[in-house]
């Protein structure tokens, strides 16, 4: 690309790209769009953090202004959530974060079979987490309903929002698996997988917060 420049200095990016192209088949054009898309995706995740933070603020506000917690409904105090089951479900989700990490590493090292094993495991663990959440919802302590009181309102809304994010993530993982196996991604062009991994870790981090706030506190 010729540019009339009084400076005559080559772009450091192009220079590095030219060197890397000889060894890693790096595409400078791709690198720049990936750069933008990664930045945009991180901004999206930060905005998603604000979404969860707003509802977490609501939970903290209502909990701080409640006379007792869990609240008393019709004379009886709502029971606490099942910490053991919640911890088990958390381990399932964190495990899926570990497997997703290995999936991305396998892909980067061009180990396709290992990648498939890891990403399918991640997907299954994600689905297991959702099933666990469904069990939590159906066996919630008496009085803990979405419209019953502030505890139910915040618990079901926050975990529901999180569950919705996990569900969307599971769908995305399925799409990524299909795309990867169709050859859309190569050893040097795999932005979708990076984004998927980041998203999945984000979902994990949010769950840490929710587990601490609702189960442990």
């Amino acid at each position, binding site marked *: 690309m010729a*540019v009339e420049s009084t400076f005559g200095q080559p*772009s450091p990016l192009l220079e590095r790209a030219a060197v890397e192209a000889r060894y890693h088949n790096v595409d400078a054009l791709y690198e720049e769009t990936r750069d933008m898309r990664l930045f945009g995706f991180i*901004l999206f995740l930060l905005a998603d953090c604000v979404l969860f933070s707003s509802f977490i603020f609501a939970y903290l506000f209502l909990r701080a202004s409640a006379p007792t917690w869990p609240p008393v409904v019709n004379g009886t105090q709502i029971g606490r959530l099942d910490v053991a089951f919640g911890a088990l479900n958390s381990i399932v989700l964190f495990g899926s974060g570990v497997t997703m990490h290995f999936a991305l590493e396998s892909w980067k090292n061009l180990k396709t079979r290992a990648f498939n094993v890891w990403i399918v495991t991640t997907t299954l663990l994600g689905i297991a987490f959702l099933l666990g959440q469904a069990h939590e919802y159906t066996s919630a302590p008496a009085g803990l309903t979405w419209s019953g009181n502030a505890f139910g309102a915040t618990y079901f809304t926050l975990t529901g929002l999180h569950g919705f994010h996990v569900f969307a993530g599971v769908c995305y993982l399925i799409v990524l698996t299909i795309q990867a196996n169709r050859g859309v991604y190569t050893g040097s062009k795999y932005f979708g997988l990076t984004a998927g991994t980041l998203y999945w870790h984000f979902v994990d981090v949010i769950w840490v917060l929710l587990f601490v706030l609702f189960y442990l506190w």
Partner: protein
Amino acid sequence: MSVTAHPIDLHEAHDHIHPAPQGFIAKYVFSIDHKVIAMQYFVTGLLFMLVGGSFAELIRLQLWNPKGTFMEYHTYNQMFTMHGTVMVWLVLIPLVTGSLGNLIMPLQIGARDVAFPWLNMLSFWLIPVSGLILFSSFFVGAPSSGWTEYPPISIQQGPGGALWSLSIIVVGISSTLTGLNFIVTIFKMRAPGMTWTRMPLFTWATFSTAILNLFATVALSAALLALFFAQVFDVPFFDAARGGSPLLYEHMFWFYSHPAVYIFILPAFGVISEILPTFARKTIFGYKMIAFSSLAIAVLGFTVWAHHMFPSGIAPWLQIPFMVLTYLIGIPTGIKIFSWMATLWGGRIQFTTPMLYATAFIGTFSFGGITGIYLACVPVDLHEHGSYFVVGHFHYVVAGGAVAAFFAGLYYWFPKATGRLLNERLGKLGFWLFFIGLTGTFLPMHWLGLEGMPRRYASYETFAKAFPDAVFWNRFESVFSFFMVASVGLIAFNIFTAIRSGRKAGNNPWGARTLEWMISSPPPYYNFKKIPIVLDRPYDFTAPLPYLNLDEEPDPYPVPSEAVLERPRVAVPVGA
């Protein structure tokens, strides 16, 4: 001219020119071209402005009579609710950020489009969808609890409330995506050599606004999602009987809605910072302070929300930090105002229509800002909250600030977008009508509020008994509100006639220096055939243009064109 030896970052990706869009749908309906999207935002925003303005005039007709017999109370309550909702979310945000930001920012940074053009198109189309949802509420009973829609009344009021929540969540998504898009664009797609401190000030303003758009709007979506759940599924976030709190909504709502007003005004500040140097023919004063104060206002804007809640039941000790921070926001704002005045000093000012709007803005916005200080003062706010003083204040900063600056930007950049000049005489007449109307409508409101007239009152009989002049002043305001209607009508007429038979503008009718004026009017779909190289800030009128690699070689010292001056050019050589 300072030549610095920055290594030039050649953005290969953005040097790529995609093929031209084909067919009517791809060119004008589902277009990914930021300029077409800007036009779509503009048309939509203007249409909603006419609708929102009509609601305002119905309000003013109701207030002609203290008994309030023109409309039923319930209808009136829907009118002020829909007026506020439409103006805030379907007019100000699409017009100021969506149309001006989309049209000009990519051109100013020498880019061919924004970072994510498809996302940009989605952002636009969410606006008509949101409008559809909002106006469908008229079939079931439009929302009637004010543009703030506090629960419990907004839950009690009927199904219109849930449609309101849904529609504003949709417009919030549009806003958030635009913020994301603009941040990435400004970070990653600036022309080679355009460092942060060589960026035009409108781009700085757009960037600061985009930060708010991205992070604050999500908080609104959360608040309204909670409200929607409360309205439709009886989820008791805000029901005290079940452990909820109405105050929670106020916190969640205002955490967005205060930054929202900076979303309106920061791009407006950017417009003023572009127009003043061009028509004063001298550099902007205090470039760095103006640029950084935009960022400071954006960040500080997140910290002051509870000044909307001083008498609402928050703990008294909380009032103090919010009061302090709100006062402090006055400082970067004041710096801008003084810098603009210093830009006018020593200039060779030509009062075209955009310059008239921009100069008047300095006065009206300062006044609105000062009344904001009154409201930030907790003890005085205990009197003024919920009164017409507040209504006067925010209309001064929104109508006399954001809208006035938008009109300035409209007159300034219309020639770039369409290749035609708007009629100056009509423009000047519209300007005077607008500001006379603004003063007549909103200045007396401060006094009425101090005297005790509450806002959102369909009838003010009790107040009129205590303060008989109220009837005269309300009628006074109603009469002058029609001046503003006339002004907007003139603008619409001006646009229609100019598009068909306005004088040709050429590349740079105003003799300005930012990159958008270096290409044709209207620009080709790809904006720049060759990505320009930027060597310095654009505003130094004593230096030649600091660009290399431009498609067309312009005069190194641009001057206003004949069409603008309405008289022949006379260039007197130096030393003659």
